[in-house]
């Protein structure tokens, strides 16, 4: 019974580690397909919001499998995952605003572009069909 659980845990760890690295590589390759810098910032979020937390959780499970349970390690892992999700979201927001203000070319279909419009100019209708 213990041996079966150990094998199941090893499979789970392998899936988490390789799957997380796969998300990172996918994000890097998608950087070639995205057309403007705002899309590239969007493409980054699977890597930092899903790929790296998967690797961190897989590493925690491997430490658990080898060394046994430790409360401090669990706490550090939880803080790391939360920080990755929250920090990368806030950082993407700051970076996207800076990228737009720095005058990097954006896809002309991008809507709304409120940073470019005077106050009281009315609402922009978001783009519907993406062809």
């Amino acid at each position, binding site marked *: 019974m213990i041996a079966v659980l150990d094998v199941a845990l090893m499979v789970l760890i392998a899936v988490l580690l390789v799957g997380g690295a796969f998300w990172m590589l996918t994000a890097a390759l998608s950087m070639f397909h995205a057309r403007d810098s705002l899309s590239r910032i969007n493409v980054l979020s699977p890597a930092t919001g899903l790929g790296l937390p998967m690797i961190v959780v897989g590493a925690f499970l491997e430490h658990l499998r080898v060394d046994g349970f430790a409360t401090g390690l669990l706490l550090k892992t939880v803080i790391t995952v939360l920080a990755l999700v929250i920090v990368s979201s806030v950082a993407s927001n700051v970076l996207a605003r800076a*990228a737009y*203000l720095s005058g990097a070319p954006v896809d002309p279909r991008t809507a709304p572009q409120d940073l470019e419009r005077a106050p009281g100019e009315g609402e922009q209708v978001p783009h519907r069909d993406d062809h």
Partner: protein
Amino acid sequence: MSVVIWVTVGLLGATILVGLFRVATAPDAASRAVVGDLVFFCGVGLIVLVGLLNASAAAVDAALIASVLGILATVALARILTRGRR
């Protein structure tokens, strides 16, 4: 088990190489900043994996600090992009 870890290290290394190539061929500075961010997070993943290979718990602390303070690098890049404007 170490085969899995080495495969993961290989995937992350490939990600860093692809990212650096993209930095070299990126059309504008904002794209370079984004891909540089991706390379940074790949480095964090490599720290975690090296901690697994050496069975050292200090790598967990390093990854924790890197993920909490990683926003500083991004915000610094954002300020550089806008030449100091907010």
